[in-house]
């Protein structure tokens, strides 16, 4: 019995039990991670998981059931249970559910991969982390940490409309962090970001990060931060490095344009959105430099795929064009409810989770400047980079972010290093203050986006480059 056979059996059983639509995903995921601390391997984990999840629509209600067994009997039982669960949902019914049309295709897709990350010898991967963390410890870090993570996912999708799609997506990445501990606080520096950079690529991404070459510098900077002056409090011009801007996009744009949030489907947990569909196409989200795309077709970016988890093909769309809000992240049911004609952004975190609206690659198109030009054009400000903490309200408006490091900018030059840099603001006001944007774009990957109940961890990509924002409140402290 093939994976397609199991998925087909589950879908058919759901239909036979009374569903008007059903789809099923079989997923086989292998995961490997290694962490190192102060020159020793701390943990090596290799997980493998195989199972099937089936989703059934009865009337206006969904049901979902997942099992780790691909036998015909188990698949059919899962299909029947999904339908039965959907029937229970009808005890508290909602409005009619429609699905925007998607062509039913038979297709295969695979992400690009030059060096199979699971094929790289563990000893080589261990040596990389041991060497880098040893170097950081030798250069003053109290805690020298490194890690990599690898996901190799094969999935087979079948729908009652005739979809039959298989995909193989390989993802990996890694990074290093140095922490120095003072009397009352800790300071951390990371490369290329805390817990690393990730993409839908092979091990070549980790090699390109050249972790060993940056180990000594970040260790020394973490130590120096303990005695650096604190970030001053007040309003100033703020320059964000690309990694921090990626997080800013993720939190204050990506989540805000999720259609399920806008429709109130996440109101009790992840939250809603400040955006109102009535303003789609007209709302001024940011300055004219702000062009945000939803693009799961970017080769190597972490949010890339061939088809989403309800069979919609990867398509590039605008979310914000010339500062104006024009698009959302949607699924087939949420799009229909909002009278939109596209889904394409639905994914599930493994076979045991219900597909839901998730970010793909949501990022800024490049601007006309460079970071050095932005610094040179800034008379008085602060440059912050690498995220350390992030917090935003349930409508995705009021945010406060902390970075690992700041630098004073005076008369167009980078000055002293500043510790504990934080900034805070309101999303659209902040984005409207962006007046310079670099073209030095990197597709930053975020492998830990939490959403949903039961919880799901999403992998998202965020092309971003350094940018300047005017009159931002910085230096918030306890």
């Amino acid at each position, binding site marked *: 019995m093939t994976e397609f056979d199991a998925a087909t059996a589950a879908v058919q059983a759901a239909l036979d039990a009374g569903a008007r639509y059903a789809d099923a995903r079989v997923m086989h995921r292998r995961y490997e991670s290694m962490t190192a601390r102060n020159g*020793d*391997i*701390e*943990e*090596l*984990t*290799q*997980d*493998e*998981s*195989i199972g099937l*999840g089936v989703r059934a629509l009865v009337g*206006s209600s*969904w*049901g*979902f*059931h*997942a099992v*780790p067994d691909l036998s015909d009997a188990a698949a059919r039982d899962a299909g029947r249970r999904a339908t039965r669960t*959907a029937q*229970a*949902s009808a*005890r*508290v*019914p909602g409005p009619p559910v429609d699905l925007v049309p998607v062509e039913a295709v038979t297709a295969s897709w695979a992400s690009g991969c030059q060096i199979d990350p699971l094929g790289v010898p*563990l*000893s080589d991967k261990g*040596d990389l982390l041991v060497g880098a963390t040893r170097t950081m410890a030798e250069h003053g870090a109290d*805690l020298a940490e490194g*890690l990599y993570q690898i996901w190799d996912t094969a999935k087979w999708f079948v729908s009652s409309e005739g979809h039959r799609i298989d995909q193989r997506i390989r993802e990996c990445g890694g990074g290093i962090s140095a922490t120095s*501990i003072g009397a*009352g606080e*800790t300071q951390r520096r990371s490369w290329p970001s805390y817990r690393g950079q990730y993409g839908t690529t092979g091990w070549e991404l980790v090699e390109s990060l050249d972790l060993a070459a940056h180990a000594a510098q970040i260790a020394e900077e973490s130590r120096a931060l303990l005695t650096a002056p604190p970030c001053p409090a007040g309003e100033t011009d703020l320059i964000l490095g690309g990694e921090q801007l990626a997080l800013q996009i993720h939190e204050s744009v990506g989540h805000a344009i999720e259609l399920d949030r806008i*429709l*109130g*489907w996440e*109101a*009790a*947990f992840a*939250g809603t959105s400040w955006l109102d569909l009535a303003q789609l196409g007209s709302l001024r989200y940011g300055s004219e430099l702000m062009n945000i795309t939803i693009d799961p077709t970017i080769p190597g970016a972490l949010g890339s795929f061939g088809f989403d988890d309800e069979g919609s093909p990867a398509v590039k769309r605008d979310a914000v064009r010339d500062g104006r809000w024009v698009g959302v992240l949607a699924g087939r049911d949420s799009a229909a409810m909002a009278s939109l004609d596209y889904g394409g952004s639905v994914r599930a975190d493994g076979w*045991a*989770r219900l597909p*839901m609206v998730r970010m793909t690659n949501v990022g800024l198109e490049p601007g006309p400047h460079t970071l050095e030009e932005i610094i040179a054009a800034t008379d008085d400000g602060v440059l912050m980079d690498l995220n350390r903490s992030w*917090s*935003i*309200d349930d409508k995705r*408006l*009021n945010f*406060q972010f*902390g970075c690992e490091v700041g630098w004073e900018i005076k008369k167009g030059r980078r000055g002293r290093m500043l510790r*504990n840099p*934080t900034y*805070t603001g*309101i999303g659209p006001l902040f984005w409207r203050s962006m007046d310079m944007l670099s073209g030095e774009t990197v597709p930053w990957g975020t492998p830990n986006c939490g959403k949903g*109940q*039961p*919880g799901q961890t999403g992998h998202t990509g965020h092309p971003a480059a350094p940018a300047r924002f005017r009159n931002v*409140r910085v230096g*918030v402290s*306890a």
Partner: protein
Amino acid sequence: MSGPTELELAAQVVELVRRLGGPATQAEAVVTRADLALTRFANSAIHQNVAESTVGVRLRLHVDGRTAAGSGSVVTADGLGALVERTLAAARLCPPDPGWPGLAPPTPAPAAPPVDEATAHAEPDQRADLVRAFVAAAGHLNTAGYCRTAHRSSAFANTAGHSAYGRSVEAAMDGIARRDGADGVARRCADRLSDLDGAELGAQAAAKAQAAADPVELPPGRYEVVFEPAAVADLLQNLSWYGFNGKRYAERQSFAEPGAAQFDPAVTLVDDPLGASGLPFDAEGTGRRALTLVEAGTTRTVAHDRRTAAEAGAESTGHAVAGGATWGPMARNLRLSGAAAGPASAVGRSTTGTAAGAVVDADTAALTAGVRRGLLVTDLWYTRVLDPKSLVVTGLTRNGVWLVEDGTVVRAVRDLRFTESYPRALGPGAVLGLGARPVRQPDRVDGVWWEAPSVRLASWHFTGGASG
């Protein structure tokens, strides 16, 4: 249930390790079957309704001085064999692990509370009925939330001859009612689905939502606060993960100083995993027991697994988790003890006018009655640590904030951002009152809960209003 039991599967894994890895290989295996179901509602309708029946095997082994871990979802003979072979291969390619603490010796697991079979095998109709009651009790208000049930059956075995078995069950409900963008929440966690009252929770959420309407914006600054149990749960979680974590303590990243009076004398914190229907052993097979972390304001200890205990010259406290070598041992069933006598009653003084309904229990009413000017806070949201050692955290209020003046809740306030050191806010002299009745709050993951009464604190640093 057909097929081998969890104990039989765990024993099979251990035997496979002996056969394939040799008698010197040390290994521990945990096999867990889980039936998890969650009925989710939004816009007063069930929109996501999910269930999973899963089985998982987690294996950790130590061979030739090297350690590796792995997991799998295939429990056939071939699947278990593949798991053992790849984990052995991984360990042999790893650098040495000088901190390996050895395996848990054979010891009887403590007795766990009985499992409610009705909850373990709850049907989707039962969860839907609770949701229906919640929605109906909220009247015309828009509602959202979930009702979930979880049942785990888990076995442990290791090559040192130790084995254990246990089951856990949990039911939880968490919902909001909404009025013009103002939300009220009600949240409970219980050992039995029958202990959850959807109508009561829906009515409570609706009352708070009504009271939260038309909020005013207050300037940032330091305010006296009364935190309801949902807000206190966030304090407990962060104290646990960042402070009472034996790994962070060993790394000098924790504020905890055993023996020091770091908290107000009113504060007693006990991790009590078997105070509810929980598994009686941790990921290393060590028995789980109640552990007093703070006693009358004095920090007593931190949570340990075998690795951090060995480093500290202590005994494991039964707090090992999967992935613990990286994240450290966690106290995940933390209770802030209630005041023995409870605060003085203040019936009739707690709310007025439009704020009626903000206070939904006697403890909170009594605590707010003592506040000259301060804020009543229902819930905290999106809290993130700015510095782990001082445990400075930023986050926002959510699901209802009210201004309290002269002991009376006078009106709703818009959400505020805060930046505060949690241990400092609970420090000596900072706790002005505790409720008598801790309320168990569910976590995002079943089996994890936080239990606390309402708390009155002298000062909380709000660093921004809703407008920035």
